């Protein structure tokens, strides 16, 4: 009974994780030595190794790893970079739904070794005989299983507060898929520049807000999304979006009752989550159906934009998000 809100908030976190909101880099450097030693003893067997820096120290990984297992939030970003893991942990059905066909095939070909981050079936994982394990989950989960993962194979661990670009760099380096990364990076830069050039005027004088609802949200609540895709819109594209005060939990962690929908009238433009077909996502439908939503000035004047956010922890989905944002901004009425 008592841990229900935590489970909800945990789900919020899990969703937020994809966004890796806090701008920190991946270089922890404070890992313990035992893991490194374990990795080193094993690396003797591998023909060639190189060292990678991550939150659990400097790890010797195979130059060309063949059997990679991804755990937690590394699953989809690694596949997005063209990687083909032999083992993965479960991702939510909603994430799977928006995965491109090819990536989905890769995901489904891999063995499932755990439900979510902390609950990894270590024996099954060991049975896959991996030569590299890539992990991103909560540090308390790492405290539980980290040593055992390191006993199975060289393990690279990133905490949840790893910024997504640095995370993509690190995964690409550890998993030896750097080529795909540089292509994606170039495309990302180009897209951002294009949006800024096309809508610079609108962006300058307009206040935006991004609202959302997850399937974990309590009935009758929504939240202001300041992490995830909207963080990219704010920090990379330069939209004027609300942001939590320094040192506070992101706004997205606070469930707001539907009454607060009326407060959104102070923003010029509202963005909300839609699926690939442009329909409001299932959890968000109750918001759209409220009369308060329909009465919002932004909504009634065509300034509520549905934006498709297939993921925000690697370049592939982010590029698809930027495409969606691009076409959404194009529908904005000219005058304010």
């Amino acid at each position, binding site marked *: 009974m008592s841990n*229900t809100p935590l489970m909800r908030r945990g789900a919020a976190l899990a969703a937020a994780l994809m966004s890796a909101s806090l701008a920190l880099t991946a270089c922890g450097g404070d890992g313990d030595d035992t893991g490194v030693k374990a990795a080193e003893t094993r690396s003797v067997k591998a023909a060639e190794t190189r060292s990678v820096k991550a939150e659990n120290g400097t790890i010797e990984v195979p130059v060309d790893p063949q059997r990679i297992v991804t755990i937690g939030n590394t699953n989809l970003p690694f596949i997005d970079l063209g990687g083909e893991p032999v083992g993965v942990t479960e991702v939510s059905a909603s994430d799977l739904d928006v995965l491109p066909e090819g990536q989905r095939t890769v995901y489904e070909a891999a063995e499932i070794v755990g439900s979510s981050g902390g609950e990894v079936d270590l024996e099954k994982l060991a049975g896959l005989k991996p030569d590299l394990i890539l992990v991103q989950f909560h540090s308390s989960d790492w405290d539980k299983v980290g040593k055992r993962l390191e006993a199975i194979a060289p393990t690279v661990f990133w905490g949840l507060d790893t910024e997504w670009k640095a995370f993509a760099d690190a995964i690409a380096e550890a998993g030896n898929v750097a080529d795909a990364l540089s292509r994606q990076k170039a495309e990302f830069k180009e897209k951002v520049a294009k949006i800024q050039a096309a809508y610079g005027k609108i962006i300058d004088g307009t206040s935006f807000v991004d609202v959302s609802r997850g*399937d974990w949200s309590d009935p009758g*609540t929504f939240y202001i999304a300041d992490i995830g895709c909207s963080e990219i819109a704010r920090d990379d594209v330069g939209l004027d979006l609300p942001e939590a005060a320094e040192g506070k939990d992101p706004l997205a962690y606070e469930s707001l*009752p539907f009454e607060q929908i009326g407060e959104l009238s102070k923003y010029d433009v509202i963005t909300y989550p839609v699926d690939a077909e442009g329909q409001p996502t299932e959890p968000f439908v*109750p918001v759209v159906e409220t009369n308060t939503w329909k009465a919002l000035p932004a909504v009634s004047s065509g300034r509520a934009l549905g934006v498709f956010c297939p993921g925000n922890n690697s370049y592939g989905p982010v590029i698809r998000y930027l495409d969606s944002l691009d076409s959404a901004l194009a529908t904005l009425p000219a005058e304010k």
Partner: protein
Amino acid sequence: MTALALRQDGPGTETAPGPRRRLFGLVVALVVLVVLLVLSVMIGSTAIAPSVVWDALFHSSADIDQFAIRDFRLPRTIAGLVVGVALGLSGALIQSLTRNPLADPGVLGVHAGASFAVTAAVGLLGVRDAQGYMWFAFGGALIVTLLVLALGSTRQGSSPVVMVLAGVCVGAVLGGAREALQLTNPDAFDAMRYWNAGSIVGRPLEVVWPILPYFAVALILAFAVSGPLNALALGDELAVAQGVRVVRTRVLAVIALTLLAGGATAIAGPIGFVGLMVPHVARWIVGPHQRWIFAYSILLAPSLLLVSDILGRVVMRPAEIPVGVVTAFVGGPVLVALVRRKKASGL
């Protein structure tokens, strides 16, 4: 296992207030309830002027604040009223039925039964609509009520100790089983999260309306058996001597109880302690007269629920605390105080 010696005070053995004072009290309770209903519409996480609230209710227009009142505050207030009535009456019924001053649909595991039944329906049978939930909630509540009554009863009558124990056991087992079901099948349960929470937020009135007829039936049944229940409080044999049909009375009371407790859970999820506290207050005011206790419980329970809900809205603004959490916080100490009283109040 030490038994609590439960003194049964029949009607008239206590210095109970006269009918006029009881009626006066009832009016006061009604006024309090109305005031709280108004407050529940007035107070919320956004500040909306009373004049706008008035207009929203009586001169509706497309103003955005008016929608907030009509679409959110009003439905949750109605849900609070309906659920409160059901909780209060079901508490009064179960206490009188079991002759157990500490009985409560929550403590006796009835809520847990309803929750488990719904979880099983969603997880194993794939039920997805609110109507479906309702029937499973009724079924779960009924089975647990019968089970707990059976476990806690002997030929000499029921034993409060064994009954509470049985309720705690059944509740714990079903709670564990429900948790296991949820852990093994997480995706299926996102849609029905409020089953764990005990909250009256975000229930569309379409969930509330279909349950009202059942509540109406339960209400009629409850008052129909209130006389016989009075007699039963003196013991089965005395009741039989007074011409009460014991089995029929019990069966009807159980049906009413099941409809109320199951329906309340179907709307709000498990909310504990309201059904425990309110009948005590009622009994304290009117003495051991079931009909009056029922009437008072019907008015006092929604008041308690609404106060708790309003508190939950304001203490963490703009976020909210589910009402079940607030009632547990208030109800826990009340339970302790009750059990520490020299004589657990008779029925």
